[in-house]
Structure formats: C-alpha cells, structure tokens
C-alpha cells in the first residue's frame, strides 16, 4: 500500500495501487448512477400519459428510429469491449482503432438523438409542452448528455494514448471509460424498453 510498486502480472489497469482503488470507486459511482437514472425513470413512470394539450407519445415514437439508435449503442458497447480486450493484450494500435470505432458509433447515436429531438419539436412536443414531455426529454437528454460527456472523455483518452503510450495510469483510465460506456448501454436498454417500447403499446 505504501509503494507505487507495480505488479508484474495481471491486467495492466490493476497493476498500480491506485488502479484497483479508482476502478472500485468508479463502480461505486456507477451504482450511484443507477439510483440517479432510476429517479428519472420513476419520474417518467409517474408522469406517464400527462400530455396536456401536446401530442401523445405513441403518435411520435417510431420503431425504426428507436431500433437504429439501440443497435448503434449495442455495437459501440461491443467494440468498446474489444478495445479493452486489446488493451489487456497490450496492443496499443488495436486499442486506439477500436476506441475510434466506438467513438464514431457514439457520435452516430448522438446524431440520431438530436435528429429525433428536432423532429419532435417540429411536431409540437417540446420539453415545455407538458409533464410527460418534460420527463421524456429529461430522461433521454440526461442519457444523451452522458454519452456526449463520454465522447469528449474518450477523445481525451485517445489523445493521451497516442501521446504517452499504454502506461498503467492510462490503462486504468481506459478501463474506466470502458465501464462508463457499457453502463450507458445498460441504461439505454431500459430507456428503449420502458420509454420507446412501452410508449408504443400504451
């Protein structure tokens, strides 16, 4: 504990004493994020159907759009997993390439989300329309904001990887952003199910 003695074996991100600490801390942070998003889901569920004079959700939600966004995130989660796998094989080039693919998919997702929001606003459903639409835009928007933050963060990591190479510190950071990215996918699964799919049937 006293030393920055690096272990010689094990995944790179765990080799320094602060590696496991940070990763555990980040898992705990993700647990807090679970509660954060669950509060948004609870709000959405309680305010469900409160459209006021605005357009109801089932008239606007479309399956192709929701599915496309879902697949973009699912694939990006997969490529992110591969990136971390590459890191554990200590392949810097593979890591950077897969991270860039992940980033591109994430940007694609964001593009679709922005397009979707703009579309809804044109149809007269804005964040100020009614309780339901406030909850909808806040829930999906918070997720979108997390993805945006992830994109910037991931860019910073890629720059660091290219400049400083695969050190234990940067490996730890990469592993953490990987966790973050997968977590956003998990949240999206619930948004897809609880918001889009249920919104289409009820």
């Amino acid at each position: 504990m006293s030393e920055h003695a690096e272990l010689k074996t094990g995944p790179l991100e765990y080799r320094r004493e602060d590696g496991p600490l940070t990763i555990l801390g980040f898992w705990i942070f993700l647990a807090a994020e679970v509660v954060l998003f669950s509060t948004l889901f609870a709000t959405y569920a309680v305010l469900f159907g409160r459209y006021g004079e605005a357009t109801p959700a089932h008239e606007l939600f479309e399956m192709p759009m929701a599915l496309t966004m879902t697949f973009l995130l699912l694939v990006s989660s997969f490529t992110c997993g591969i990136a971390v796998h590459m890191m554990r094989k200590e392949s810097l080039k593979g890591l950077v390439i897969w991270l860039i693919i992940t980033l591109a998919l994430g940007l694609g997702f964001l593009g679709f989300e922005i397009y979707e929001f703009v579309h809804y606003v044109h149809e007269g459903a804005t964040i100020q329309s009614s309780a339901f639409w406030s909850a909808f835009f806040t829930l999906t928007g918070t997720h979108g904001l997390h993805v945006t933050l992830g994109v910037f963060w991931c860019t910073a990591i890629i720059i660091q990887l290219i400049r400083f190479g695969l050190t234990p510190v940067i490996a730890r950071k990469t592993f953490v952003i990987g966790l973050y990215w997968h977590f956003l996918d998990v949240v999206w699964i619930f948004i897809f199910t609880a918001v889009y799919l249920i919104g289409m049937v009820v």
Partner: protein
Amino acid sequence: MWDFIWNDFLVTGEPIIYGAMASIVLATVGIVFVLTYFKLWKWLWDEYLTTVDHKKIGIMYIIAALAMLFRGGVDALMMRTQLALPNMNFLNSVHYNEIFTTHGTVMILFMAMPFIIGLMNVAVPLQIGARDVAFPFLNAFSFWTFFFGAMLFNISFVIGGSPSAGWTSYVPMAGPELSPEINQNYYLLGLQLSGIGTLATGINFLVTILRMRAPGMTLMKMPIFTWSALITSIIIIFAFPILTIALALMTLDRIFGTHFFTLAGEGMPMMWANLFWLWGHPEVYIVILPAFGVFSEVISTFARKQLFGYKAMVYAMCVIAGLSFIVWVHHFFTMGAGAGVNSLFSITTMLIAVPTGIKIFNWLGTMYKGRIRFNVPMLWALAFIPNFTIGGVTGVMLGMASADYQYHNTYFLIAHFHYVLIAGTLFGMFAGLTYWYPKMFGHKMNEKLGKISFWFTVIGFNITFLPQFFLGLMGMPRRTYTIEPEWMPLNLLSTAGAFVLAAGFVIFTFNIYYSARYEPREKTGDAWDGRSLEWATTTPVPHYNFATVPYVNSHEAYWDMKETGATTYDESKLEPIHMPSYKGLPIIMSAIMFIASFGLVWHWFWLAIPGLLGVIICMVIRSFDFDEGYHVPIEEIKRTEEQARGRKE
C-alpha cells in the same frame, strides 16, 4: 443599471439586512487586513486552501460547520424572539419565512453534514491506519464544492433575497408560478453544488474504508466509528443521487419552463414531496449514524470498557441503513395515499425503533461494570441517552399514521426532531469534537468551561423543546410567524430556553479560543487513555499519519498494543512513504462552479455558460495531470518520529 442593482440585486429596505451587509463587509475587510498585515496569504494558500491532507480538510469542515451553526443559531434566536409573545412585531411574515427556511437548510445541510464529514475526515483514516483517504484530490474538491455551495446559499440573504419556501421547498409554492422571484434558485443551486461534494465524499470514504485498512483489520475488527462512517457513506451514495435529480427537475421547472411539478402542463407537485423524502429520510440517518459511532467510542473509552455487543451494534446500524430507504412516506401520511400505503410505512417506521433500542441498551450495557469518568466528551454522550430516548419514543408516536394526522405540521413534530437532531447529532458532534480535539490541535479543550457550556446547552435545550411537545398538542402549527394568546406561557418559556442554549454555544466557542491560549500542550498522543488506533499516533499527527502500520487483532487495536507494549513505530520496517501533492485546482474549479451557479440563479446565461466551459477545462487539465505526488524519505520519517517520540519520554 443602478436601478437594477439597488432594487433587485441587493436586498434593501430592512434594517436587519443593512446590519448584515455592514457586518459582512466589515468582517471581510477585517479578515483581509489581518491576512495582509501578518503576511498570511501565502501560508493560507500553501497550508490550507490547496491542501489535500484529510486532517486539515477535516478541520476546515468543522470550522465551516461551526460558522454555519452560528448563522443557523442566530436565525433560531430571531424566530424564538418573534414567537415569545403574541402580536410581536420583530419580524414580519415574509422575513420570518425566510429565516425559518434558512435555519432548516443551513442546520441540516451546511452544519450537520459538514460536521459529520469533518469528523469522519479527522478520525477515519487514523482509525484504520491509512495514510490518507483513497482519493485525496477528490476529498479537497468535495470540501470546496460544499464550501462554495454553502456560500452561494448564504449570500442570498443580501443579494437577491433568501428562499422562503421552507427547507422542504414544497411545490407548487416553491415553483415558478407561485414564487417567480429568483430567491428559490439559491436553494436549488446551493444544495446542488454542495450535494456533488457530499456524493464524492461518500464514494471516497467507502473506497477508503473498504480498501485501505491496516493489515489484519477485517471488517469486524474496525472501530465502531469507522463502521458508522462506512454505513453513512453507503447511505450517501444511494440517497444523494435522488436529491441531485429532484433539485435538477425543480431547477428545470424554474429556469427552463418544464412541467414536472407545476400546476399548468399537468405537472405533479406531489412527486416533489415524494422525491424529496426519498432522499430526505436517509439523510436523517446520514446525520445520526456517525453520532452513534462517536457515542460508542466515547462511552467505551470513558467507561473504560469494551463496547457491549459490538456485533449487535454493527448489525443494528446495517438494519437502520436498510430501513431508512423504505420509510419515506411517513413524512406525508396526510397526503391521502390510503390506508394500505400508510399502514405499511407506519410499520416500517416503527420497526426502526428496534435496532435503535438495541443500541441504547448496548450503550447502557457498556457502562455496566465499567469505571466511568465524567470528562466533557462523556458528558455529551451521557446527556444523549435520556434525551434521545425522548426523541426516539416520540418518533414512534409520530410513526403511527392515524395519530400523526394530529401531530403532523405541528410543534410536536418540531420538538421531536430537535430532540433527535440536537440530542443526537449535535451532542454527538460536540462529543466527537472535544474527544478528538487533542488529536487535532495538540491540546484538550478546557474541562471547566466545557462543563459550563455543557450544562447551559443541555438545560437550555430541554427548556426550549420540551414545552413544544405540548404546544403541538394544543394546536400550534409549525412555520407560523405569530402565536395565539393561549400559547403564550409555553412559548415564552421556550424562548427563554433558546437563549440559555445559545449561551451554551457561545461558551463552547469561547472555549476554543481559551483552550488554544491557556490549555497545557498534550504530549502523549493518547489524551484519554484511548482504545482505537488513532490514539497510537504521536501528537501532532505527522502528515503521513503512521510511520509503520501495526498488525491489528481486534476492534480495540491500541488497547491491545498498550497491553503488549507495541508502538506504531518500527524502525526496521521503515520505507519511503508515498504522499499526494497539494493542489490548487479543487478550490479554483469549485470557485468557477460557484460563479456558473450564480449566473444560473439569475438566469444569466452569459455567465453560466462560460462558467460551465471553465469547469470542463478544469476537468481536462486534471485529466492531463500526471503528477504522482512525492515520497517522504526514510531520513525525514526518522527525524520526525524521534522528535515526537523523544519528547514523549
């Protein structure tokens, strides 16, 4: 422009406010003068503002908490003055509302919270034999976001107007439709800012306690205060995100025109109450559990006995933590959710009495066959038991939903939670502060003054709040700025008590000054014949805490060491100690967040957006910061330890 500044920006027209403005300006000028005259700016920046040392951060938390206790206390005295007699004309209704709002918010979030976090910072790393917390940089960041959040909330008094919707800020009253002024935004953003820091503290301490304990110290061999800190951290981590969202939603309602809790747009005001108490109830246990931890330490130390039923104490706290998340509806039994909902939450609420009762009896058991010394920390702990029992049983009474229809929103409730929060949290914090004071500052607090302040506080407290139970049953509602003639005698008594209580606090504060000047220096490092590891360090504690960390065999590690004559200094095992560097970024980043939040309070996006960009830039700077700290060389450790230990003999 001037018109705006004079009429909207600054609060004008009240003599009290002018007085406050003048005193703020004078105090600021005074502080700046002293710092400049004695050339202390550099010292302040190098030693405190940029520190990442948990001990110094703990001290800063406690100083801030005492300052906020003073502010909240003055609020309380003003309220009690207004309520002393019928037809009092000391505060008008608007002013009174602002004052009880700030009193509640300040006391819970800016006094109790930093006090417990401060004590956790001081004691936990020492109790588990760690060099610091897991993330020292984050720890400094937590403190500064708390500090600036508290400042943001406090400046509302003179700039823009204080929030006045109560510390619970129920909508629609606090919403954009019925409170269009900006004052409520201070509440939202001040709490949000400090909430970020609290969440970070929770994560920090959970990782610290889970991963940085001394060798041999399994979970069931941790000192009980560390256990309480662990459980508190867990509650923080799972409760504060709910507050974050609740505040964010109301901020959206007020600044961006959404309809979560509004009357128009089919918003749902009840949902605010629901989310607020989903956080608010666990919050109550966040501020009480560390106090329980302190009492356990203090009672066992001063009864000179092991804690009675250590395991039961731990399990009781775990059960309390679990139950704390499933009782929130008891804060709004009268909302009409139906007999089914109220029955369930009545029963879960009353069930909390079971683990709490276990703890009370275990404390009594600890004293049984002990050898009790009545030092000041012990006095606070002893006063806690009977007073908190009154608070606890009235809590059970309030938990019975059908009777609660009569207690709700009355002074009965006020009396109950002051019995719990003052006798529990505040006595606990005073006990903890006097108990660890020698470890923090190298001298005890004066016993005589301590006893005087104790008796003033305890007697004043009972005179203040005991009558309020009866006032509640007589039909006096909370938050009323004026009283009916038939409530006069008890209110007058209560007001008199409040001034006695305040005298106790003034003496306590004076004692800090007095002790710093006249108390003999404490040289042993073990001021109270302590039992856990923090007493094994020398006093003052070296910045690296422990030269070598001993192997721990029980939850009373130092007691064992004293029996075998071991020390925490084993020269053969010395290694260079890795320490983090001090950083200016936490305070700078928090200050930028403060500015951004201030912009948002006033709907000034030209200020808020650059502020947010500044925060992002700070995060990038942090990400590219590869500073790995430094190592304390063996020679320096030897020198420090010899100096400290040589003096001891």
